């Protein structure tokens, strides 16, 4: 699936409060956009709106040639602070489940496990993992089922310096392969080609 992300004149409210209005963004294959803004400015809400999880007030979110429903169900990955991993299950069980759920392959999953150095963690319960290890597991979920659009919420925050660099390399590889990244960040994202600041 090839897709691009076109956001036109988007307005969004949460709990009766207008977060932003008139937001515009055009993201084409191979491009990354760093989304910045103060705490509570609506970065996460924008990512969730793109994923179709929260309703918008007005405006359009389009995915280029792809149908919105198809793009959302099989064309994008959402990675936030809530990573969807069950603390009572082992890392391996969760990775296998999400890979299958998102239509990934076993070989892609094995490659992702090697790339994120998770071999020794797979037998541990998710509750035993540190925040950084959990984030690596969540990144492995993204790599296990290739999808063009990555919506990332603070993707680097729990990672140490070494893994930040590796995660950036993974994201750069995704862009080289024609992927798109929309990432909410506080620190500058070195590989971003676009920047969007949410202003109230």
């Amino acid at each position: 699936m090839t897709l691009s992300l076109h956001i036109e004149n988007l307005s969004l409210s949460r709990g009766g409060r207008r977060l932003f209005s008139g937001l515009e963004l055009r993201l084409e294959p191979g491009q990354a956009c760093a989304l910045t803004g103060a705490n509570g400015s609506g970065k996460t809400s924008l990512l969730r709106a793109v994923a179709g999880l929260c309703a918008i007030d007005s405006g359009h979110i389009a995915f280029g040639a792809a149908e919105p429903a198809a793009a959302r169900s099989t064309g994008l990955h959402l990675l936030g602070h809530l990573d969807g991993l069950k603390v009572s299950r082992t890392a391996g069980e969760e990775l296998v489940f999400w890979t299958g759920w998102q239509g990934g392959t076993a070989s892609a999953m094995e490659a992702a496990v090697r790339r994120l150095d998770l071999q020794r963690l797979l037998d541990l319960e998710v509750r035993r993992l540190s925040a950084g290890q959990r984030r690596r597991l969540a990144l492995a979920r993204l790599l296990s089922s290739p999808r063009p659009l990555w919506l990332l919420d603070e993707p680097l925050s729990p990672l140490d310096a070494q893994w930040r660099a590796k995660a950036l390399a993974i994201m750069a590889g995704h862009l080289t392969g024609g992927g798109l990244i929309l990432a909410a960040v506080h620190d500058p994202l070195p590989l971003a080609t676009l920047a969007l600041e949410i202003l109230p």
Partner: protein
Amino acid sequence: MSAALQLLRREMAIAWGRGGGLMVTGGFFAGATLLLPLASGPEPERLAQIAPGAAWTVLALSALLGLERLFERDYEDGALDLMAHAALPLEFTCALKCLGHWLATGAPLALLAPLAAIALGASPALAPLLFACALAGGLAFAFTGGIGAALSLGARRGGLLTAVIVLPLFVPPVIFGGGALDAFTAGLPWRAGFALLGAYAAAAVALGPLAMAAACRNALS
């Protein structure tokens, strides 16, 4: 399809461990059933009379256990986000979650219900019908219970709220099943009550997931 099977397997594994597990639901079921003779007196004739109804009522209450966690954990840890934008429609996902809950807790309880009724003095001839009622009723309890669990997403003390929402929905199956059991004991035609129970379970399976998915989307947005 494999995604659906994997979800079912995951839901069963989680339901098995989710403050449920058969030891807990089964233990609750046995304990609550044993309270009855202590409260109503040990005369065998009286106990035998109320045994099927007692087993049936306790079954309905046991079905509430673990229900509040059916969607709540997935809501809290973000798994519901990932399930809401997936190839599988959310309605189908909700149905699979309820089915997994029923397979892990409701179906094993259906085996315990006849045992409990016989232990209280009910006739062993009643066992097959009670088992069938508990299977169909358990399905109805799981799928109507899922509606309550989804509606109380995000509420504090969601478990209590779930029970309050769900207990009125449990009334028809309890009446139909109890009626069928009574009629069978009295030697009267019992098929109508059982058929109504089956119809209610079928309606719950068909319509419940629509309500659950709508409630989940509302909670997520």
